């Protein structure tokens, strides 16, 4: 998943929080202020928190499709390409004698150059052999650079009131008015309704666009609808989060939601919730500490949720994966120990083919010689097996299998040999290599597979009661 961009975004967010905080220390709120913000008493707080939560909801939902369509960076190009449009519209509007800061006018300009940037990327991709990412990198930086140049031109103008334009880069929620709230609310409404009605269309488009074409759908139009929705969210988000950080708001909630589920519908729901929560929480903190930039705080909230999801996510989180790996590792260790013990018992019993060996104490030192275990690892394995009631320690230097342990050991050994025999007879693996190969797979053999192996080998007339090893058992032969 897009880890590096996300990391970069987090760093950007942090630095813009710090740049906003410089020149003054954190102002720690007291209880009454906290109460005021959390209960949304203040009109302005209500407006800002409401707007950013809705924005988060919309961007989480539409961002999920953007992520699944593998167009994350396209959103970034789009938002950066908005800057020249804002500046040009400001110049045009002041030139015509109007107020340069009329919001609809500025957002219109942003939309036009934003889409122009995306169109150029597609043009470059379709007419040259340049790859997507290089095309996007070029367009993104050229448009943004052009916007910055225009911005400094505007600043140099006499009687300029252009100071506010910079807020579109980092976002500034303080200047929001009721009109903005209604704009955000209506765009959110459109995004949610469109996502409901186009759920199956977008699902298929993002999964297999060629197949969508086979069904007779116009995938270009569908892509355009998706792009239009992303553009709408980006443009209305410029004011609150700023054009640099809006991409984080689009992608982070979706990426975080992906760690929790394998179902697209649940992912959409979660991403919307995470986005909304980040918007609500981030802007609340910002209301308490007015020096901190709300946009950056919102993005950092989303990043926190992302980090948490990355580690603790239920279906694909790092912890879940590590834990299942660890569980397998333990199981492998336990089975190796039991099999080593069983094979030692067989050696002690001598070559009595077709019978189970009798259970007897085994010296730890001979176990040690059996596999390439370190003494520490062997001690840990024995302790673990004792805990699981597979093993009893009789005296200082000997161990003995318990009744359930003996059954488990016999079963494990048998599985190992079934698999080995199968490899030799059906997969043409040389006997001297087979032990190692079998070692890896036997631990994950399910009952169904074991049954199939038995059937297959029984058909070949292999003895199955107590299967002898198909190769010579050498001490310390196979390590883990």
């Amino acid at each position, binding site marked *: 998943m897009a880890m590096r961009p996300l990391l970069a975004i987090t760093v950007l967010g942090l630095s813009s929080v710090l740049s906003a905080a410089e020149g003054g220390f954190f102002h720690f709120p007291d209880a009454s202020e906290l109460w005021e913000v959390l209960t949304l008493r203040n009109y302005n707080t209500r407006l800002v928190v409401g707007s950013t939560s809705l924005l988060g909801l919309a961007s989480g939902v539409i961002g999920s499709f953007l992520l699944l369509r593998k167009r994350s960076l396209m959103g970034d190009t789009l938002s950066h390409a908005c800057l020249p449009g804002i500046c040009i519209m400001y110049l045009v509007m002041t030139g015509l004698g109007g107020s340069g800061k009329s919001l609809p006018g500025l957002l219109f300009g942003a939309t036009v150059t934003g889409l122009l940037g995306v169109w150029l990327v597609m043009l470059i991709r379709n007419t040259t052999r340049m790859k997507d990412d290089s095309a996007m990198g070029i367009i993104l930086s050229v448009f943004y650079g052009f916007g910055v140049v225009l911005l400094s031109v505007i600043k140099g103008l006499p009687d300029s009131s252009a100071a506010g334009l910079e807020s579109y880069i980092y976002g500034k929620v303080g200047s929001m008015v009721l009109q903005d709230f209604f704009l955000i609310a209506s765009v959110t409404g459109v995004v949610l309704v469109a996502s409901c009605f186009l759920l199956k269309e977008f699902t298929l488009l993002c999964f297999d666009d060629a197949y969508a074409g086979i069904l007779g*759908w116009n995938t270009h139009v569908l892509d355009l609808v998706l792009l239009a929705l992303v553009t709408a969210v980006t443009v209305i988000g410029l004011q609150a989060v700023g054009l640099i950080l809006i991409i984080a708001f689009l992608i982070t909630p979706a990426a975080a939601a992906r760690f929790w589920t394998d179902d697209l519908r649940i992912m959409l729901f979660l991403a919307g919730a995470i986005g909304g929560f980040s918007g609500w929480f981030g802007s609340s903190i910002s209301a308490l500490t007015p020096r901190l930039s709300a946009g950056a705080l919102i993005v950092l909230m989303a990043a926190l949720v992302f980090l948490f999801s990355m580690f603790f996510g239920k279906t694909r989180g790092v912890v879940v994966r590590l834990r299942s790996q660890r569980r397998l590792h333990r199981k492998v260790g336990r089975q190796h120990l039991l099999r080593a013990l069983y094979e030692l018992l067989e050696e002690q019993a001598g070559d009595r083919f077709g019978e189970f060996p009798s259970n007897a104490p085994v010296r730890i030192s001979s176990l040690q010689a059996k596999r390439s275990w370190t003494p520490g690892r062997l001690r840990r394995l024995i302790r673990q097996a004792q805990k699981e009631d597979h093993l009893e320690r009789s005296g200082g230097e000997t161990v003995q299998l318990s009744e359930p342990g003996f059954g488990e050991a016999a079963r494990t050994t048998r599985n190992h040999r079934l698999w080995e025999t199968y490899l030799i007879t059906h997969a043409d693996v040389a006997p001297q290599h087979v032990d190692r190969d079998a070692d890896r797979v036997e631990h994950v053999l399910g009952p169904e597979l074991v049954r199939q192996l038995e059937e297959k080998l029984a058909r070949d007339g292999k003895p199955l009661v107590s299967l002898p090893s198909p190769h010579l058992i050498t001490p310390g032969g196979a390590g883990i």
Partner: protein
Amino acid sequence: MIQTPSRPDVDSLPTPPEVPTHSPEMPLAIDDLTVAYHNKPVLWDIDLDIPEGKLVGIVGPNGAGKSTLMKACLDLVPKASGRVMVYGKPYKRQRSLVGYVPQRESVDWDYPISALDVVTMGTYGRIGLFRPVRKLHRDTAMNALEHVGIGHLAKRQISQLSGGQQQRVFLARALAQDARLYFMDEPFAAVDASTERAIIDLLHELKDQGKTCLVVHHDLSTVAQYFDWVVLLNMRVVKAGPTEDVFTRENLHATYGGRLALLEEAGQALRDAGR
């Protein structure tokens, strides 16, 4: 060439004499098809008529344009020239009659969706835009999944399926489409023996229902056994016709010409096929 007018009663009329090559019953008729990538032709002047109810193997060396032929028929890559008729009418108007099984690697299997959801996509064309998926459609999809023997995996996320199971999901999706003409792009690539068996059974079942299947196939040793009609392709149609007439040593030479290793393989295949 004169195109037949699109009145609904046209199917009941006898074939007009101006169109001698294709009868309207022909599931697939390709005329003068040429496809070029970056001005370099990959398919030259393809003329092909596929009769109904056949299992058709499309065979040729790597880079012969086998997949491109399918994609050009399905409007997935632009045609430089030529036209494709499905049951007597242009493909665009006959989409509902055509099913497609793409190559397995063409999609990202790490997508948050279940096997059943993918198969349900086969019914999306019938559902239409903006309309929700109903129980009826999910039932159709479930039947298709059971048909290919993996009904018990319906709820499983698609990345947790084996390669063969993923291939079966794609086949089930095409089944759910309920088409009359199927395009299958290397369905046998890297599947286990039981899946291969299942696909063969499915192909014969479709054939028995009078359906036509075009299958891109790599394994020369099984061509004679699996298909009753063969298209030998190498940027142009080298030969097309019933397997016993077309799948011969000379024709394979012409198709794989110049590539000695492959020629050896082809010769072996012919010996194996008992010719």
